[in-house]
């Protein structure tokens, strides 16, 4: 389960960012922000010609001693970042992929909402509860 889930706009400002536990929020924000550089690198590494059939899932962006940061980029360059606890060994690549897929679907729903202005921070309750379900329950 993730400890931090973030949705980052094309222009690299956060559309949505949530983490557990709350007291370490700043650290996660820094982690997510730093990971954007890796995302950038990974996207640019894939050639322009390949951009069309590019895999949206970017894999492990960078590991730290305590956390693993995974990335995913939609075709409109919106980035999803999931931070998972390194000690959580049950999380495999497939689980992470499916989490991203769920996140993407839910994000698409948010974008389909006619009352949502693209570029605004996401305040959808449905999105929030979906994210909550993917997060480690703060206990």
């Amino acid at each position: 389960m993730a400890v931090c889930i973030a949705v980052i706009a094309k222009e690299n400002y956060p559309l949505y960012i949530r983490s557990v536990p709350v007291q370490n929020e700043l650290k996660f924000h820094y982690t997510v922000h730093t990971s954007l550089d890796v995302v950038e690198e990974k996207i640019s590494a894939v050639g322009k010609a390949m951009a069309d059939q590019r895999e949206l899932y970017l894999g492990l962006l960078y590991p730290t001693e305590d956390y693993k940061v995974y990335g995913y980029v939609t075709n409109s360059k919106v980035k999803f970042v999931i931070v998972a606890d390194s000690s959580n060994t049950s999380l495999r690549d497939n689980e992470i992929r499916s989490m991203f897929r769920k996140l993407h679907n839910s994000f698409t729903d948010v974008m389909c909402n006619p009352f949502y202005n693209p570029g605004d921070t996401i305040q959808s309750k449905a999105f929030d509860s979906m994210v909550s379900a993917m997060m480690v329950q703060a206990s």
Partner: protein
Amino acid sequence: MEAHEEKPIIYTMENKPIVTCAGDQSLFTSLYTSLAQQLPRESMEWRRSYGRAPKMIHLEANFVQFKEELLPKDGNRALLTFPFLHIYWTDCCDTEMYKASVKDDMLRWQSTLRLHGSVDWLIVVVESEAKKKNKTNILPRTSIVDKIRNDFCNKQSDRCVVLSDPLKESSRSQDSWSAFLTKLRTLLLMSFTKNLGRFEDDMRTLREKRTEPGWSFCDYFMVQEELAFVFEMLQQFEDALVQYDELDALFTQYVLNFGAGDGANWLGSFCTPVKRWSGLLLRRPIDMEKRELIQRGEASLLDLRSYLFSRQCTLLIFLQRPWEVTQRALELLHNCVQELRLLEVYVVQGALDCWVFLSCLEVLHRIEGCCDRAQLEANCSHTVGLWTYATEKLKSLGYLCGLVAEKVPTSEDLNRTVDLLAGLGEERPETVNSLQSPYKKLNEALSSVEAFEKHYLVSAMKKGDPERAEGFLDDSLRSYVAEGWSLQVTHTRKQMAECQKLLQQTEDYLQTSALLAGDANLTVEERKHFCQEILTFASQPPTVALSMAAFAQLRQMQFSPPGAVVHVGAALQLELRVRCLMPVAMQVEQLAATLHFSLEQGGARGRAGSAQRRAGHGPQGQGDGVVLFPQGSPLAGAGMGASLLPALELYEMQDRSPSDSSLTSTGVVCKNMHLLLRRHDSSASLDTPTAGALPAAVAVDDGAQMLRARDITLQPGDNSILFTAPVQPGSYTLRQLCGSVGRVQFVQSHIYPVVQYEVYSQEPQLTIEPLSDNLLAGIPQKVTFTIATGHYSVKKGDALQLSNTDSMPILHSSCCSATVLSSTGGQHLWRALSIQSSEKVTSISLPPTPPYHTLEFQLEVLCHIPPTPFKPDIERLTNGEVRHRPKNHSHADSGMINIDQKVSIDCPWSIYSTLIALTFYVPFKARHSILSAGKRKYIQVCLQNVSDTNFHLADPVLTERQPTVSMELLSLNVKTQQPVCSQQSVFCLWEMRWAKPLPLCLHCAFSASFAPVSASDTHTAFKPYRYEFQLDRAEISPPSGDQHCRTGALCGLEVSITRQAEPSETEGEEEESTEIEGLRTTKLMYEVVDNSSNWAVCGKSSGVVSMPVAASATHRVQMEVMPLFAGHLPFPNIKVFKYLPHNAVPAIQPDTDSCLENDTISLLDKGLDDQGDTASIRSRGSVHSVGSGEQQRGLPMPRLEPFSPGQVFYWSQGRQVLVLPVTDDHVMEVNVT
């Protein structure tokens, strides 16, 4: 070679597969060099089992003397010491000798091999010519080989090869060498395939047993590593790496399973407390020390991992993949830390940090050792992770050992340091001589505070240099603000505040403090702290100007009155709503708004003008006088702002034509287009001025005009501040807002959207407007007098003096009331109004009214309808002066005739009279016509109601102006009263009866009474309407000669044109009248046309006559016509036109002919128009035939203009003449009015 024989050194990269040599050692020794050289020269395809892809490999071999000990005993699976092939060398060519010794030796060799189950052998028979020559009793050469084959290779004849003259350079020798080498390679590969296959099978079997209790990972590790060694020996590094990766994965899986509660017994040995943390060792190909630990089952987790990684690293570097090493290293280090945690292994605090630090540096050193600088720089992205990790670990070690604290390390810290250093063990021999070894670095760094800082700085390049730190922080702050990461922004700002405080950058520090004090991400305590910092600075000089954005946000501004337009002397209040961001209440000594003042016709502009502006696109868009300031928190605002455009500011635009204020175009205008259409690119978004980064220095604008509010306490949250605006006429724009807290000033340098208000001064003004759309003449109408007092205050006794006129009396009751409205439209006051009338003037005494109020009252006026036909163009002035105004005054669509009535008013505030024009419309239009029925004549009067009002019409009467006895008018009208609806007509009819011949002219007057249908009292409301007209009669001159006209005969036609009226001046302007011998004349053109082919006009049919400008002037023209039929024929038509000669013609002779001739000449001279016309005019001589076609083509000059309907009365219209087959003369009269 020989040295290797005794004890083959394994575990070096020089490992080669072992091939034993038996038989003639000296023979082999002589061949060894070329053999060792030639064997790897060609590659062989190695086909692999289990579907693995075949590979081309170059074979090498380590040739050792055959010994029985070399052969593996049962159960020993060591592959590296395994002899893959056994070769027996002999150069025996003597049968005797073969039988005597060689064969026995071979048998012994074979039996030994067979005893150990080794089937990979080869017998090489070397033949040499030299040897053959020496021996005389040689058997055929083949016989020895055949014998050997016969003796040993019963079915495998290929196990015995012949090498001919190996030391000679002959083609035969070459061929035999190559055949031998091929055989050797093939056999070696066969042996590999067979033996490795068997080994792998054994290994798999062992692996399958891993669930059994006695299974040990270390044992298995040794087995699989053996395989890896073999692959490595065969230069198959990829395969070797796979072996290690498999081991790695297997181990990882066990650890994970252990975490999941499925622990294996053998893992116990890895769970022992970690006693050594000396880091990775990558300088040796194989770390035998650790390998032995593993072999003995005494390795710790770190030992195993270290060893495994050192092997992987070695292979990766062989594979030229150094960047994979760095990546794997980071993974490994993270993983080890996690695994130790998972296995709950006890580790001394800080030990892991030491291990990680050393390992990072070791990996980096290893990589640096195998790459050049350029390569390293190009791939810094791969090494940065390790550097960071090392830095982090060093930092945490520093904290742990009390090396970064301000105080000196405590004894506890020192003890801990000693413990950690002990765990590092002795430095390895490889790096003892290197000055920069990781071991030495760590040792030194932990030895003292100074040394730690030195090392930490070298690795981190930070700290202790606030100036540089501020620069870095500023950069990162900019990017965080631009990208809207609020938590980072707060955190970085806090760090920045520290730097700025250290650097004594007061202004910057205060600005940052202000931002932090208003930062919702901080706790209230922290915010209060920063707020207090500001207050502390505020109490002492120097004065500092800071941006207001951090301190407070403008929310809205509200004007009272809402229009933001006031007259001089009125109060204008401005309510400013400010959200204070400070955590505590702030005492603000003064809040001042700087004003930009411009005179900008403020005083001159009338009230109406400003009102219009207000309604249109005034600065304060909403009608309620509220200006809302765009919101956005100073933090998120910038980030969002980069992506979100400002909202569209749309205004409705209406373009009215200046003349009649009709709408010509309308549209929507975007006012902030320049903002919206600006190019947005990513770089620009970072440069946008942000509230977060230090804003540009704010300058306090020392404007003369200010709105001030003193001693305000701003509570956290929304505050409302009231300003009272000064009132000098002019236009004011709010520029800056400046709040002073002690010596600290918070300045908002621009106020956007633009906030403006206006103060105006206005002249008193009087307007009179009709109450309804149109004023109708003839009936009493109400008009509204509106006095905008402006700056004038109406005193008691002030009165309006209206000059009286006869045509428009003012109907008044002695008292009526006036309304007084304040400029805001608020109060309504009813005041009495007294009106006195004298002969000349009507005086209206006004009630006292304060300035900038509106006084309104209504009066009834009546405009008399002048008798018709009157000159509609005459307007009457009160002083009786008659003025001519441009024509075309009839109402645009209804054709109503209007009367402009001017009223001259003397106002108390002005010495000049005010002239106000009122336009009245005559509601009716009358026409008359004479109808004939046989000999009877009727007069019909048609009265059309052209107004929008419905009327009752009563008592239509027709009278003669000069009553004649001979004449009687008999009314045929039934009703005395009838309604006339709007736009409808009423017809009245009278029969004319006369006894005597009638006079030439009959003046009649039609009169009727009318009243609006809506009028309550019909009888009193009836107003008279008069219509006067005159009837003119044509004289029939009886023919002088014959009684009747006859067909076919010419008869005379006398055309008589009589001027009925003097031309008005306006007509005179248009008509060309010329003075000839003191007589004014007008030119007329007549033409006799007969459309019905009854008459033939003989001679000239048209001509121009000069009519004297005098009433009853008559011109007679004689002409000849010929009737074509007999019977009662209608008279031929006569058309009369105005003749307008060319202006250039100097004088026109009264003689028509000459006049025409003149015209012709002028036409020719000018060369105008087409030649055909000119020619026709010429051919006809004096006759100027004017066709309608010619007219249409618009001859430039002279031109003809038809009379307007009703101007020409055709006397003989409808008359007939009896035509007999004889000639007859007729006189025809045409009257022109």
